[in-house]
């Protein structure tokens, strides 16, 4: 279903450790939502100097008030600072749901869900959908410190197992989510890994999954100007079915990609063998 623009009302906003969790009444978005979708939020109000929407994963949708969406975010800069200042009953302009959601397995397989920081947020509706199909769900959640591990309790309730990691050891194991990955893949007999995390973590997740011969579905985060596929700002090099690398838009062709298809080492560059690279491949077909 096509995305919509909605002027929603803030229903709740609260601080959850290092994050802000905000529930917005946005029926049109809630009813179209699938796990892995994101939404683009207008920030700054009328007469603002901030032109671009901020993209946030949808953490949850609920049927209350015709449909609500929940967002979880940390304050990075001016836009998210403004967002954190919203109060109950303020209105908020959202476009969504955007992007390709996480693909779901046909069979009741074992799924390992890996989240780092606010990257955990979109994993919970995914876990719901997977469990509804009879899949086993295990979690590895991590962050630099305990206050940035999002959703540990809920993961413990939902997951067959839940492994927590922090860089400073303030919660769970000391280290990164990827340190625990081989171990948990083996233990949980995972058939597929789903991950939402910074690019460096996704790279490791994709590599470890490949080494274990299982697919990884990774949700990437690239700076996005439009979120709807018209500006070409959010591209990264991805190998197509035909073996050709293209700079594809993470907003409409992603943000979820098959891990082995993303050329993580070349993110932020134009690989010389990509379609249309300077002095490089110039045609869709042929070398």
């Amino acid at each position, binding site marked *: 279903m*096509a*995305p*919509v*623009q909605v002027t929603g009302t803030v229903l709740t906003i609260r601080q959850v450790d290092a994050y802000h969790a905000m529930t917005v009444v946005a029926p049109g978005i809630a009813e179209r939502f699938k796990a892995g979708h994101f939404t683009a939020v*207008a920030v700054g109000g009328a007469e603002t*100097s*901030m*032109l*671009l*929407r901020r993209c946030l994963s949808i953490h949850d949708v609920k049927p209350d008030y015709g449909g609500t969406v929940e967002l979880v975010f940390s304050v990075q800069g001016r836009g998210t600072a403004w967002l954190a200042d919203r109060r109950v009953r303020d209105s908020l302009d959202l*476009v969504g749901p955007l992007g390709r959601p996480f693909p779901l397995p046909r069979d009741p397989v074992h799924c390992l869900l890996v989240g780092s920081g606010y990257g955990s947020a979109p994993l919970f509706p995914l876990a719901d959908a997977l469990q509804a199909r009879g899949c086993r769900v295990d979690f590895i959640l991590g962050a630099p410190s305990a206050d940035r591990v999002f959703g540990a309790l809920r993961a413990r309730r939902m997951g067959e197992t839940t492994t927590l990691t922090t860089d400073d050891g303030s919660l769970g194991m000391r280290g990164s989510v990827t340190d625990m990955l081989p171990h948990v893949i083996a233990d949980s007999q995972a058939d597929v890994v789903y991950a939402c995390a910074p690019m460096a973590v996704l790279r490791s997740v994709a590599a470890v999954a490949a080494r274990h011969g299982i697919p990884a579905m990774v949700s990437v985060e*690239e*700076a*996005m*100007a*439009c*979120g*709807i*596929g*018209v*500006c*070409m*700002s*959010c*591209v*990264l090099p991805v190998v197509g079915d035909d073996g050709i690398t*293209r*700079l594809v838009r993470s907003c*409409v062709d992603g943000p979820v990609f098959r891990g082995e298809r993303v050329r993580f080492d070349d*993110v*932020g*560059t*134009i690989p010389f063998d*990509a*379609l*249309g*690279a*300077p002095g*490089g*491949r*110039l*045609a*869709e077909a042929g070398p």
Partner: protein
Amino acid sequence: MSPDMRARLAHVELANPVLTASGCAAFGRELSQFFDVSRLGAVVTKSVTLAPRAGRPTPRVAETPSGMLNSVGLQGPGVEAFLRRDLPWLTAHGVPVVVSIAGSSVAEYAELARRVSAESGVAAVEVNLSCPNVEDRGRRFASDAGAASDVVSAVRTHCRFDVPVFAKLSADVTDVVPIAKACVDAGAEGLSMINTILGMAVDVDTMRPSLAGGTGGLSGPAVRPVAVRCIWQVYAALPGVPIIGMGGVATGRDALELILAGACVVSVGTAIFHDPYACIRILRELEELLEQRGVERLSDAIGLAHRALPRHRTEENHL
């Protein structure tokens, strides 16, 4: 009575004067998720190049006060894929198409003009002159009246006779008027302005340029005063030449501002990123503003701010 919103690109009539700006609506397909694209005056395509292009490295975008910088670098599928896949989709959806073309030599522009204008459904060709000229050490065609004129005359020669050619100018020049004149003398039926302005941002946290490409193109409301000025100057110098106005249009008031300065239609770019419905909202707002002002035909508003009017400052009543 609601005003007559019909507009013209030279001899080509459009149902209304609100177009997408090149590079800000791709090839129309994405926007059609939000509204029926046949409601647009026209779609101006992302600039089409001969070969596919991967563009420049990321990050390609940085927000600036009331503006943004981009360095997409003309990423696109190339003319062949465009003609095979994108143009047919647009014509099938019943929207006039202005094809923007971009080359790195006069010959490339000529070839693009020939291939593109041979197809049906092309309302006009817009020549993006803000490209580096490989034959002149990467100097932009738009920076030089001679180079711009060479491109436009080659395009005019190779374009089907009934497809008007609009030359898209850059504001990054000492004086835009002589370049506008050179383009018109070389056969351009109309002018588009303005393209993005060369800008840059440095990230004070990484202490490095915000864009991988270093510099980028500034767009959005921040540049509107520059767009209005260029349109004003060129309309004053070449009153009969149709102008596709663009640069920072985000509301009907902004569109009207460009029209009063001399634009006959407006293109909406960056505003689409904020509001996918921007074009149809702006059209509605523009229509209301004209009606409120008792302007019966859009065409009556074009360049209206140029008429000499005595100022009665002391008659103003702000209270």
